[in-house]
């Protein structure tokens, strides 16, 4: 150890000043990379490199995540029998309530199906989903909200596809490698989604704030005479050709409404339905009948390969 100290000190005395040219070259390389990527936008020259790096890192991230998954489930092993009994009671009560609801809901659903059948004859009512797990999350230090999922082009997942989970809209795919895809969450500051108010069918634009993982979204209504009510559910308006967002996916609930005389439109705060802090199983909306390498969950509850 002492010898090492001495050695490194000797190196100091020998003048271990870093060659300035190396530093300058590295900074210039970084700035060049930034310029290339900033100017190019979505078809930037860095995109192929990004994809290639993704091909390499994707499987490693999948493996790591698969290795970590059993350990994240450990806390649930330590629940006592009492806790479990309590939960069974709670679930039984909930089940009874749900059963009652389903009995009455059938009639409503049939009526709705008839109405929908009239208005949307040709369009398919549901979407086919490719199931996927979240395997990596972007650090908040990068100030963007993105995740990696373990389904890629080999499973029929491509850029500009809608990603959702049981609760509602999660985000959209920005790029896909063979085995993984990168998803921008709706809470990201760059995310813009067309939304429709459930109560008045009015349309508006939802923007992410990019502050925190569970931050609310801002809804700007196109028509300023319409007032959003707290509790209103906002769903996707849908994009042309279903890309990047298909229509009718619930996004969130209005929690507060603001209006300022200076702005021409009213702003509403929308709380997302999806819990982004514990995101795991998601579904990617793929075209009906798409050929994918893994099981697809069909709109009618069926399952095909």
């Amino acid at each position, binding site marked *: 150890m002492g010898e*090492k*100290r001495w*050695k490194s000190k*000797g*190196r*100091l005395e*020998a003048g*271990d000043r*870093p*060659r300035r040219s*190396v*530093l300058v070259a*590295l*900074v210039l*390389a*970084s*700035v*060049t*990379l*930034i*310029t*290339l*990527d*900033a100017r190019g936008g979505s078809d930037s020259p*860095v995109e192929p*490199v*990004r994809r290639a*790096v*993704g091909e390499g*890192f994707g499987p*490693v*991230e999948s493996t*790591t*995540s698969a290795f*970590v998954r059993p350990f994240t489930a450990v806390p649930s092993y330590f629940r006592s029998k009492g806790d479990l009994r309590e939960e069974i009671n709670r679930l039984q009560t909930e089940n009874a309530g749900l059963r009652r609801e389903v009995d009455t809901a059938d009639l409503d659903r049939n009526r709705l199906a008839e109405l929908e059948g009239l208005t949307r004859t040709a369009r398919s009512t549901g979407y086919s989903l490719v199931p996927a797990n979240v*395997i*990596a*999350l*972007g*650090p*908040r*230090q*990068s*100030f*963007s*909200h*993105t995740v*990696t999922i373990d389904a890629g082009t080999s499973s029929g997942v491509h850029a500009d596809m809608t990603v959702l989970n049981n609760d509602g809209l999660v985000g959209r795919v*920005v790029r896909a*490698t063979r085995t*993984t*895809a*990168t998803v*921008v969450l709706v809470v990201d500051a*760059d995310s813009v989604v067309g939304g429709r108010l459930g109560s008045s069918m009015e349309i508006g634009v939802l923007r992410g704030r*990019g*502050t*925190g*993982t569970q931050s609310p979204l801002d809804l700007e209504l196109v028509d300023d005479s319409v007032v959003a009510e707290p509790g209103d559910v906002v769903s996707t308006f849908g994009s042309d050709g279903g890309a990047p967002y298909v229509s009718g996916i619930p996004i969130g609930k209005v929690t507060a409404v603001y209006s300022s005389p200076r702005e021409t439109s009213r702003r509403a705060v929308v709380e997302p339905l999806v819990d982004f*802090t514990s995101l795991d199983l998601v579904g990617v909306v793929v075209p009906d009948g798409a050929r994918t390498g893994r099981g697809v969950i069909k709109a009618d509850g069926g399952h095909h390969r």
Partner: protein
Amino acid sequence: MSLLRALVAFSVVCLAVVLQVSLFPHFAWEGVVPNLALLVVVAAALVRGPQFAAVLGFVAGVAIDLAPPADHIAGRWALALVVVGYVAGRVRQDLRPTAGSVVLTVAASSFVGTSVFALSGLVLHDPVVSVPEMLQVILVAVVWDVLLTPFVLPPVMALFRRLQPAEVAY
């Protein structure tokens, strides 16, 4: 032999990047995770000096910028970690690497690194985040990096010492 050394250093950086996105989100506080790649660069700077650390910082930064799920403008973390490698390497010349100075260097490096990244975002408008929000994230990141220092720095520094060429005459 030097190729092997480079390969080992490269795999340490890759491992850090993968753990950062796949393992640590489970322990994240408000989405902020410890920046393992930055810790590796600081370790390299303390053992091998600014030049090696700046090069390693560039490699680590590019890896963070390009590995999924990154979607920010590429090159921003590269720039931040080049600065970190250089600054941390210079600090080491004035201080003997004791436990206290290592922790201080990590804290300063983490602050500088995340700040450079955040400021480059302000300049490029990618994404637009408020300054108080940035400060909060930067401070949490510093706390995380300092907390992880006793677990990450000693083994990584030992590894880089072993990787050091037997002859150090330049």
